[in-house]
């Protein structure tokens, strides 16, 4: 019998968030729908089919036999936004596999703002 090994979505999301924040050029993760209240949050939630918001701001994950991740970041204009996004993909993917053993299918990155100052 194979021992069961369960890793919850909040854990995966927290690992992803931590990895993304550590990437040079990432200013912050953008607060996601988890922080919203009332019907605003309800409408926002309906938009993510199959991706449950977890209480980690700016990260949404789906965990099956592999992991899908969406990360919302704000980058600094000092770095190329697309290059930062690629680095986020690599860092998040590596961190999740290292920490949980789960293979990562894809990391979608949304650069929601580029800070100019």
């Amino acid at each position, binding site marked *: 019998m194979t021992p069961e090994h369960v890793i919850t979505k909040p854990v995966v999301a927290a690992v992803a968030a931590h990895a993304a924040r550590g990437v040079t050029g990432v200013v912050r993760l953008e607060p996601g729908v988890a922080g919203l*209240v*009332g*019907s*605003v949050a309800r409408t926002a939630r309906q938009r993510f089919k199959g991706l449950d918001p977890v209480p980690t701001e700016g990260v949404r994950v789906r965990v099956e036999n592999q992991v899908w991740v969406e990360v919302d970041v704000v980058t600094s204009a000092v770095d190329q936004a697309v290059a930062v996004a690629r680095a986020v993909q690599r860092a998040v993917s590596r961190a999740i596999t290292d920490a949980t053993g789960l293979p990562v299918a894809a990391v979608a990155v949304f650069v929601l703002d580029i800070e100019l100052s």
Partner: protein
Amino acid sequence: MTHIEVVSDPLDDVTLVTRARDGDIRAYETLVLRYQGQMYRFALRMLANRPDAEDVVQEVFLTAWRRLDQLQEGAAFVAWLYKATTNRCLNVIRARKPQTEVEPDAHEATDPLPDRSAEVGEQMAALSSALLELTDDQRACWLLREVHGRSYDEIAQYIGGSVTVVRGRIARARVQLAEVMAPWR
């Protein structure tokens, strides 16, 4: 060390609305900061419940953002906010009603003086409670006119009624409130 602050003229609503319509979030932030307080105070007097009032204000400003395109002129922004806040408050009150019938205790959710030590004036306290005895429509019209200084014409547009109706509601509200303020001879 002295700080020299460069004080620039605050941008007018038309400029801010135009920029916000083009997706400028910072311009919209300025508009939210400029008007959220007065919408909140209006909603709070309507609903007598802080979380409900904040929910209304949040939805009003999110909806306003979505509808910036439909706003004919930037100058109409405040009027639009008042109209939307009025209607949302009335909807919230209507949604509460069935609950109060089933469960008399639900009345406790509203409080004429939500733990506000600053509101010391006895007259003001009396007015706050008396406001909640008015009908919702009367309260809305009276607050918009007497506390927020909107014109009869504007209020008529907000509630989708005539100026005569608005005048009538405010007159009735005034009589009712004045009676509470001091014994009517």
